[in-house]
């Protein structure tokens, strides 16, 4: 079982996920993410490391995508349509539905910039999605005869899943990103006690025990409320999907409760579609949403309306969700420019921003921004950062390990220092090995696979006839011949094996020479030996044959004089494999010499 992570160069880094696992001869790629911090080749993994010669389609048995975030699926169309991977791709139903929206969203933002080449097209996204096989939770999917996969609920975002990959009795669980505490619209991750050989877990928040999400939510609502109360406008730049939905639910319920009148707008049609999917995949959301679904669908918002470009100039307070999330182009940047100069307004950044973007600049405290054409934009509006991301913290990771009981743990997607601390904790508490390889480093884990073997009925009957009835708790030794053919193993009786394979039996005999001091003639020595054995081995058939040799069952004994020393006789003892025990016993007996008084 080996593991290899194609991250963004050496060293651990939060960026993109792309992992290669080899398990019992099968190669599986886990996630195919992109790095949003670059706009050249570095944004995609360098797939040439996977195989130097040979096509990827031949090398990989399948690709599995854990969820729709771009750092987990953003390179997929590039991989399947431009690099040329043509094999199967698996993801859950919601991921398959939502993934293309985000890819499309990102493609549009990317090609909006001038000079962008080597990026996938809309058609490529579609062609890629057509190759995807969607799976249900807990459904065992047979990729081929040996390889099977199974998805478990991971929380984090709609449709996020952990995947168990199994070949024979060896298995790996890959968590993707997950969340062990339910949030406003999703439940907590769950897995059964599947005892995988390896658990690959993300560790973004490896050492943090996150403060309660409730506090952050209260804080967020308070800030929005205050701004609206004093007549200001609130801009929330978002990506089309994910966090936007959670914030919508939050605001919607708050507006309802407080009976607020200020309008809330959504700037793009994309999110309408996203909300549509949240409605469609209601079973993937958390219990509370599902329960109230009958009375009122949480995703049918009363207070949130579609935005029109003209609204940005309207007087009075309002809240606007606009894409893209990093304020680097399009609608959100346009609104930001209009509102930035007024200290009554506020912008809330709910997510990560890449260096260079306006979002990154204002988050790091820059207030005088150079815009196009050497214009300087002075930012007087308030800038807030609100993290709502849903990852498991250290406690959550430990909890998952307790649930799954893996034999080995491997941490990815986190910072080296933080991971080191968690690694020690895991090794101490669970007594399992924990690895944290750098990107590009291969980790090999040896497993002790138990291989199932079929036993022929004849052999089983024969063995049970001899011994006691089979008992699960008491392992029993059985003898037979193992036939390995076409990847299957069968234990049969030796006779049957000979018959099946059309072979003749070979007799294997052990021989041993024993030296005895005896000056008598050879036949007299033989007689002495015969009498000696007859006296000791009363239950066995001991015979003295006319040719001067002795047999005890299948064991044959002959005596000759030593060529150099006539006073020494050499006893040649020979026995078959079946009588190994008796043969050894006899030899040791003879080595002790003959009793003196038998003559």
């Amino acid at each position, binding site marked *: 079982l080996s593991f*290899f992570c194609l991250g963004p*160069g*050496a*060293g651990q880094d939060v*960026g993109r996920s792309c992992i290669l696992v080899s398990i019992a001869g099968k190669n599986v790629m886990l996630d195919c993410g992109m790095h949003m*911090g670059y706009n050249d080749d*570095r944004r995609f993994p360098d797939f040439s*490391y996977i195989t*130097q*010669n*040979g096509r990827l*389609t031949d090398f990989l048995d399948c690709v599995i995508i854990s969820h729709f*975030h*771009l*750092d987990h699926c953003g390179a997929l169309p590039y991989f399947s349509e431009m690099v040329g991977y043509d*094999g*199967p791709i698996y993801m859950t139903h919601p991921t398959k539905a939502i993934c*293309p929206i985000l890819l499309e969203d990102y493609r*549009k933002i990317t090609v*909006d*910039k*001038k000079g962008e080449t080597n990026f996938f097209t*809309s058609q490529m996204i579609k062609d890629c*999605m*057509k190759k995807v096989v969607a799976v249900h939770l807990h459904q065992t999917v047979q990729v081929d*005869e040996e390889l099977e996969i199974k998805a478990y609920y991971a929380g984090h975002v709609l449709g996020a899943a952990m995947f168990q990959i199994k070949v024979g009795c060896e298995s790996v669980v890959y968590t993707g990103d997950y969340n062990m505490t339910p949030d406003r619209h999703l439940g907590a991750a769950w897995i059964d006690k599947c005892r995988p050989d390896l658990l690959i877990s993300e560790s*973004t928040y490896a050492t943090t025990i996150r403060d309660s999400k409730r506090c952050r939510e209260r804080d967020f609502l308070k800030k929005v409320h205050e701004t609206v109360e004093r007549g200001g406008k609130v801009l929330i730049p978002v*990506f089309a999907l*994910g966090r936007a939905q959670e914030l919508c639910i939050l605001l919607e319920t708050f507006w309802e409760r407080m009976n607020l009148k200020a309008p809330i707008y959504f700037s793009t*049609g994309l999110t*309408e*579609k996203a909300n549509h999917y949240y409605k469609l995949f209601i079973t993937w959301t958390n219990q509370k949403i599902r329960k109230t679904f009958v009375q009122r669908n949480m995703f049918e918002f009363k207070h949130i309306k579609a935005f029109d470009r003209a609204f940005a100039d309207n007087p009075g307070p309002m809240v606007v969700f606009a894409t893209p999330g990093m304020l*680097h*182009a*399009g609608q959100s*940047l*346009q609104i930001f*420019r209009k509102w930035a100069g007024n200290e009554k307004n506020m912008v809330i950044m709910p*997510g*990560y*921003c*890449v*260096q*260079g*973007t306006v979002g990154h*600049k204002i988050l*790091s405290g820059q207030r005088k921004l*150079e815009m*196009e*054409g050497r*214009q300087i934009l002075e930012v007087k509006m308030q800038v807030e950062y609100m*993290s709502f*991301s849903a990852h498991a913290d250290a406690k959550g990771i430990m909890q998952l390990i307790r649930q799954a009981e893996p034999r080995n743990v491997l941490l990815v997607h986190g910072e080296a220092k933080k991971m080191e601390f968690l690694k020690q904790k895991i090794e101490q508490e669970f007594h399992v090995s924990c690895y944290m390889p*750098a*990107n*590009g*480093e*291969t980790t090999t884990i040896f497993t002790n696979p138990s291989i199932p073997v079929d036993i022929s009925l004849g052999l089983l009957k024969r063995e049970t006839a001899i011994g006691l009835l089979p008992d699960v708790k008491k392992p029993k030794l059985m003898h037979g011949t193992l036939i390995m053919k*076409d*990847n299957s193993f069968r234990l049969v009786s030796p006779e049957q094996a000979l018959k099946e394979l059309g072979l003749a039996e070979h007799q294997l005999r052990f021989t041993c020479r024993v030296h005895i001091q005896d000056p008598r003639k050879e036949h007299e020595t033989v007689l002495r030996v015969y009498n000696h054995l007859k006296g000791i081995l009363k239950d066995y058939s001991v015979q003295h044959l006319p040719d001067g040799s002795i047999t005890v069952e299948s064991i044959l004994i002959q005596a000759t004089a030593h060529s150099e020393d006539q006073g020494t006789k050499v006893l040649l003892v020979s026995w078959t494999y079946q009588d190994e025990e008796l043969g050894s016993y006899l030899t040791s007996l003879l080595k002790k010499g003959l009793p003196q008084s038998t003559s």
Partner: protein
Amino acid sequence: MSVQKSRPVARARRRSAMTRECSLLLPRVCAALADPRQPGSDDTCLEKLLDWFRDLTEFDPTVKLVQDNPCLTEFITSVLALPEPSPSILSFTLRLAGILAASENRFQHLQEKLLVRLFGRDGPLNGAVWEDASVRSGWVEGVHSMMHHQPALHFLCNGGGIDVIFTLQGDPSLFVASAASQLLVHMLTLSVESETTKPLSTKDCDWPACAQMIIKRIEDSLQSSSASHIEQSLKLLTSLFGSCRATWTEVLWLGIAKQIESFLTEETVQAQHMLANLLLNMAWSPVFCDTEGNFWALVTSALEHLTPVQAGPLAVGILRLYKCPQDVRIQALTVLLQPMDCILRAASQPLEYAGLLDESVSDPITVESLLSSKSSCASLLCQTLAHLEELLSLIRLPVDLPYTSLLRSLMTILQFCNGFLSPASPLGSTISRILINSFRVQRSALDVLAALSERKGCDTLIGSLFDVLLAYLESPNTSPTVLKKTFQATSKWLVRLQELSCSNSQWQQAEKILEDVFLVLQKRLCSPCWEVRDSSLEFLTVLIKYWRDQDEFRQSLLSSEVPRLTENLLEDPESYVRASAVTAVGHLAFITYFAPESPVIGNQYNKENTVAKLQEILSTDPEGFPRRAVISIFTKWLRQGCTGQLEDTEQFVSRVIQIVEHDLDWEVRLGGLELVEVFCIHTICQLGLPKCPYAPVSSAVTSSIHQNESLQIFCRAKLFSFLFRSLCDCDKPVGQRACHILLVLRGNFYPISPLKDSQEAGDSSAGHGIAWLQRTLKQGSLAQNFPTDGGNGVDFQDPESMMLALGTIDLEELHDELNKSSDHVEKSPQSLLEDILATVGTTEENEADCY
């Protein structure tokens, strides 16, 4: 145009230059990076910083940069002085130093003080930090950047660096190992090419010292018993022969050829799989492929000795060569065709076998045993098929393939896979049992089948081929991905069928096949699986594109249910399918309403209804794909002159513009502009001279009349309002396109450069409006914001005002401004330095909260 083309390059240079602002910021940035109390900077920032230094130093070998910015050397010194530098900063420092030392001058400038401490024995390579892969990676990259001159070469060789690099070839990190191997290749090449005074020959082979060290190490490891050492050296040689085509490589080769030959036959050394690539790279090098005898004998021997899976890539590579002995080519072809031959043999009775290969050349035992084993059958076939597809996709093939037999073999494979053929022979039944339902093999075989359609010579089998394809199209067991490939192969072969039918005027067979195809299509268009519906629509569109001029085709299509079902799919719940349905319906129109002698009777197909339906989609569909599809179909119609007489077209375009103007999807707006552009060119051309807007004006009088007319049409259709507003669109491509169109229009209406001052443009009321428009555009195109309260006195439908606007507004300047990349500010080094400084002191966990 050439001036414009060179501009971006010059601009990029300027952007990366060390400006005064940057040189003021740099010392603070360096201090912040070297400060261990500061939290580590974002990796991408450090990478971009290195990119910038690479740009700065690339064309400037002088010491100016390091002299003017002493903070750089100070930074390196202070990182070295840290008791425990963070791995990422140390790695950055190593790479930075390497980039700076890339020129001899700067290398000398830095050497005494720093380079030894960074890359020498006492540097990080003997410290605890070396455990960190990023430090090792930084070291290798740093050395590689520096390795452009002899002093660097000697510095490293004399300091024992070669040993370190050789060790790093086996690094646990694949990134480091691969970089180390590349570095050795680079150093060997540099050493030989910069340090030899006379050409090397086999007789007098006086390698320079550094090259000698490397070659000695390669030879030693090839002779060692360590499989990993052998593998590393073979990898190194493979990339050396792949990148360097100088004659000295042959001298090197002669020294190791014997040893490498032995790997082919010695079973104890598991190096065979490495040899195919090595030999292939050599075969591409003129140094080796021109030699008589020895090298090609080795290739032939490799093709014989390697397993079919190992030999495959070598064989296909050889077959792509134009310069190659014929017997080697045949040997290579044998490797590729053997599995296909085996399939044919397995499927036929002994007597009827007409195989692919002469029995004298084929040794089928190995291939047969691979094909009859479950674990290797599919992979060998898939690999072989992929190689064949690669060969067939070449325009000029240096060899002739037996196309008919190949096609027969492909059909057999496909029939094995869907269970339509289960032969009696033991081999055949084994293979067919293994292959049944193998999607992988099906996909690969269909790809080759599609590629084969372009080759002439297998037309006799076309009837039975369509039987196989139709069976796949019909079968409910065909997976969506396989079905898509079947559609692709079918459409390609239908094109071939059309050519055939045309040449022999035999339409019966084609008609029968088309009928069957439409029957299947009817079923597939109703599939519950959106992927299938979508692939079916795409297939239909392709068919119409190629066949639309054939009466027989139009008859069969229109008498089937396909057109009706296609129109129904305009309301599909899946947006991808709606978009494909729009495209298909748009193409259907070519054979219904727009065909010169349309076979449509009655009003089953109503043009107005379809146009209305598509316009409705354009204005109401909640998703971008269908709307984009509509606008591109409209443009296609317009391009092909299908929208009727000019008045109709004018109204049509005007209506469409009003719909797309407010679309949230900028690509729809962009599509609208494309439509406008086509309309403008058509109108101008249709109204007579000049035929093309770029052509010179022949007669001033007639042209001015026509200009007047076209200008009026454009004003009536409300084009100008759309175009001018688009200049301020928040998405740049829209503004750029609009500006381009306006420039074309101005070129038409003002053949000689007009540019009037708006103040002088007359005291007419229009003049004020235009002055306002010019001001607005200047600010607006930058702010990406056109006032929502409208034109402020500009009448976009008044020809006179618009003529004035075109003549007054400096469109070139706007064009230049818009053509700047929208992230040119965020990409600038100054912005990068400011961002790094701004994050100093903020220890929030922003960066961990990823997406």
